[in-house]
């Protein structure tokens, strides 16, 4: 598979702030890629750069082999874009807006009518198609935003925090729409809602302080960076037990000085050496004469990977 998005040394500086530092990134065709980072990490800057809304300080980027900054019109004709807070002309109806965007793409009028109707149906907006956008709910606007970004059958779809302003129902609805795009187009989607990313993405790229920390398959990241955790719940307080555990070399929480989560009688323990931990932990519980209520192996989540990598990056930055 060829790279549909390629960034080489892409940087963006604003006076004293380095919003993006030497981003090297390759995204393969037809994947759904989650672009993760805390607020201000550089996610929106990257997406805006790739959509020609801002200019880079250095570096280059291509989309489907076309240079983004030298041939913006060709690139724009190949991509779809949904901003963090999609804005529309409130005086237009949903259908009119899609028709307008389609006309900008010079789509044949007959085909455009059909395409707009299909997208409105797919986004469950058929009933509201002839209503003014000013009267749409946030979820409807988000779905209309996705519809307009798909009007040209884009080869690459950029979604900037598509679920951040939605309620749980709206999130599920938008997530299902994105899931439905799998295999049809390449989706590059920024978010800080990790559970959403985990549900729909094939690959994850994590950015922190303008720098790409990692980019890999979700399954590889989990395997490589996080071992399962163990949840222990006892009748007694586990404060002293947690202190004792933190001194063990196979416990990750000890490395972080309180990385384990103590809530009175329950404790979540993460390990640097899970195999050893799995053997040693029951032994320590027995030796400490604790009355075990619950003992559960927790599978790693993207949140664990994210927190671990961000923590490592902070340590490296400070060093």
């Amino acid at each position, binding site marked *: 598979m060829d790279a549909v998005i390629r960034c080489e040394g892409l940087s963006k500086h604003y006076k004293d702030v380095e919003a993006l530092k030497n981003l090297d990134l390759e995204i393969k065709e037809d994947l759904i890629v989650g672009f993760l980072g805390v607020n201000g990490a550089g996610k929106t800057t990257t997406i805006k750069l790739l959509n020609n*809304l801002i200019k880079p300080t250095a570096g280059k980027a291509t989309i489907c082999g076309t240079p983004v900054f030298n041939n913006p019109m060709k690139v724009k004709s190949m991509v779809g874009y949904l901003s963090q807070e999609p804005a529309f002309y409130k*005086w237009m109806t949903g259908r009119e807006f899609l028709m*307008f965007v389609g006309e900008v793409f*010079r789509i044949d009028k007959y085909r455009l009518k059909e395409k707009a109707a299909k997208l409105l149906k797919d986004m469950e907006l058929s009933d509201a198609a002839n209503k003014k956008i000013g009267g749409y709910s946030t979820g409807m606007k988000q779905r209309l935003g996705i519809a307009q970004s798909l009007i040209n059958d884009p080869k690459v779809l950029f979604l900037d925090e598509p679920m951040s302003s939605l309620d749980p129902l709206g999130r599920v609805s938008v997530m299902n729409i994105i899931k439905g795009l799998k295999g049809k187009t390449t989706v590059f989607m920024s978010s800080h809602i990790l559970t959403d990313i985990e549900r729909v993405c094939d690959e994850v790229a994590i950015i922190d302080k303008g720098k790409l920390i990692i980019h890999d398959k979700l399954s590889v990241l989990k395997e490589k960076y996080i071992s399962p955790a163990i949840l222990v719940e006892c009748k007694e307080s586990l404060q002293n037990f947690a202190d004792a555990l933190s001194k063990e070399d196979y416990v990750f929480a000890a490395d972080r000085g309180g990385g384990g989560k103590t809530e009175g009688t329950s404790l979540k323990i993460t390990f640097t050496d899970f195999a050893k931990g799995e053997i040693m932990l029951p032994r320590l519980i027995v030796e400490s004469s604790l009355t075990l209520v619950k003992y559960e192996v927790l599978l790693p989540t993207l949140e664990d990977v994210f927190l671990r990598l961000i923590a490592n990056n902070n340590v490296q930055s400070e060093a």
Partner: protein
Amino acid sequence: MFKAALKKEWKEAIRRYRLLVIIGVFLIIGILSPVSAKMLPKMMEIMASQSKAQGFEFTYTKEPTVNDAIFQYNKNLGLLPILIAIMGMGLVAEEKIKGTAETILTKPITRTSLLLAKFNVFLGLAILGLIVGGVVCLFYTRILLGNVNIPSFLFFNFLLLFYFIPFMAIILFLSVVIKSMAGTAAAGIGVYFSLMFMGSMPYIGKFSPQGLYSVTSTMAMGRPAQEWTIPFMASVCLTAVFLVLAAAIFEKQEI
């Protein structure tokens, strides 16, 4: 692309009542100018009788003429740049503030096309307004005061249009460079008064669009148009300069 943007701008002008406001304003000016010219002697008569009662005495003997109506029309339209500033304040600034610029500029449309579509519709509104206002003014003047010299009146309106056009380009430019809509309107009104001041200065005045307004004022008094080419050229050049500047700056702006 340009066609789509142009279509959208016209729709917006209609749906957001810009067309209605322009037509309404020109319609009112077109009607009121000849009517007020016709009524002026009667109003002066009433004022004279009131003044007499208070111990002052004056008489107003001038009979209203066609030129009085055209002069009034010209005077009323002289304030139109203020309306242009108010109506044009959001042309680009609003799109940037509300975020629609971000949505649209990721589509295959050039920023210059977008600006030109906005300018064209703004210009179209002014032309339509002038047509409506002119026809109505002509009609009422003919009914109330007599025949109007049509070719002269057409040329008078043509020059008026070129008095308005630079203000439209300036407002478009201001809407690109100023981040707030109110700021754009305030700066636009400031520019209007500055150009008015510049227009009143000897030698320099004729090189400003205000020079065209002086020509139309002369024509409104029934005299032939004189020395209109220099302010006309100044108006065209100023328009071109501000359009090019607006496009150049907009192309470089980060959204």
